[in-house]
């Protein structure tokens, strides 16, 4: 039963990834911790592996539709480890609560911008 729940959540995670261009980790991680019983670190690591496979298949299909700028994607991806290093450093100096609320505010701001843009487009 737990395995079935994990399968369904991962299916939904992949669906979300394909629809809006994210990896799906937001759903894979809870599926792995709650229904498979992995620890948070194990779940995040395993989720990363799943994200690579999902993103690869999704990007391959999107490329077929003419929806991928490969060069731009490679530049973004190649620069991400610098960001991860900055993120980890920041996380060690700022309280987690401040970080959570800051990112929540940024997410809401971006959501408002997307809605405003979509309505006027």
């Amino acid at each position: 039963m737990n395995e079935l729940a994990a399968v369904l959540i991962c299916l939904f995670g992949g669906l979300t990834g394909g629809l809006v261009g994210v990896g799906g980790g937001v759903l894979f991680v809870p599926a792995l911790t709650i229904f498979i019983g992995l620890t948070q670190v194990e779940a995040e690591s395993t989720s990363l592996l799943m994200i690579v496979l999902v993103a690869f298949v999704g990007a391959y299909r999107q490329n077929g539709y003419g929806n991928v700028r490969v060069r731009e994607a490679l530049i973004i991806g190649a620069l991400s480890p610098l960001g991860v290093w900055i993120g980890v450093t920041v996380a060690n100096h700022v309280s987690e609560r401040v970080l959570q609320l800051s990112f929540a505010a940024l997410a809401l701001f971006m959501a408002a911008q997307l809605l405003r843009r979509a309505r006027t487009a």
Partner: protein
Amino acid sequence: MSAADAPPDHALWKLAAIGTLAGVFSGLFGVGGGTVIVPLLIFWFAYGERLATGTSLAAIVLIGLLGTLAQGGLYGNVHLLTGLLLAIPAIAGVLLGTAIQQRIPQRAVSYLFALLLVAIAVELILS
């Protein structure tokens, strides 16, 4: 891709900023960089939703590969069999998702993305 398609220098800086920001949020919250990449490609480069999401997925392949290699290689935390088995329904989902995305208006993707961002914000505030 031909040289004529290459982004100008100022665009390179913006791309570098997007990559770095995606990494920052990935490092801070364990969320995929896509949350940041898709909106910024739309705001800063005026990408259409489909181009932004497709390019985001391609960037995530590289971001995830680097992360997986670090986690799997250095710490051995990746549960390979579990990950591969659960990737099967996830891949079925992404095939379905990309197919559906080609058949809905681009602005619908923006609405869905805004919904996802609000859900993430609520989860962060409540956690």
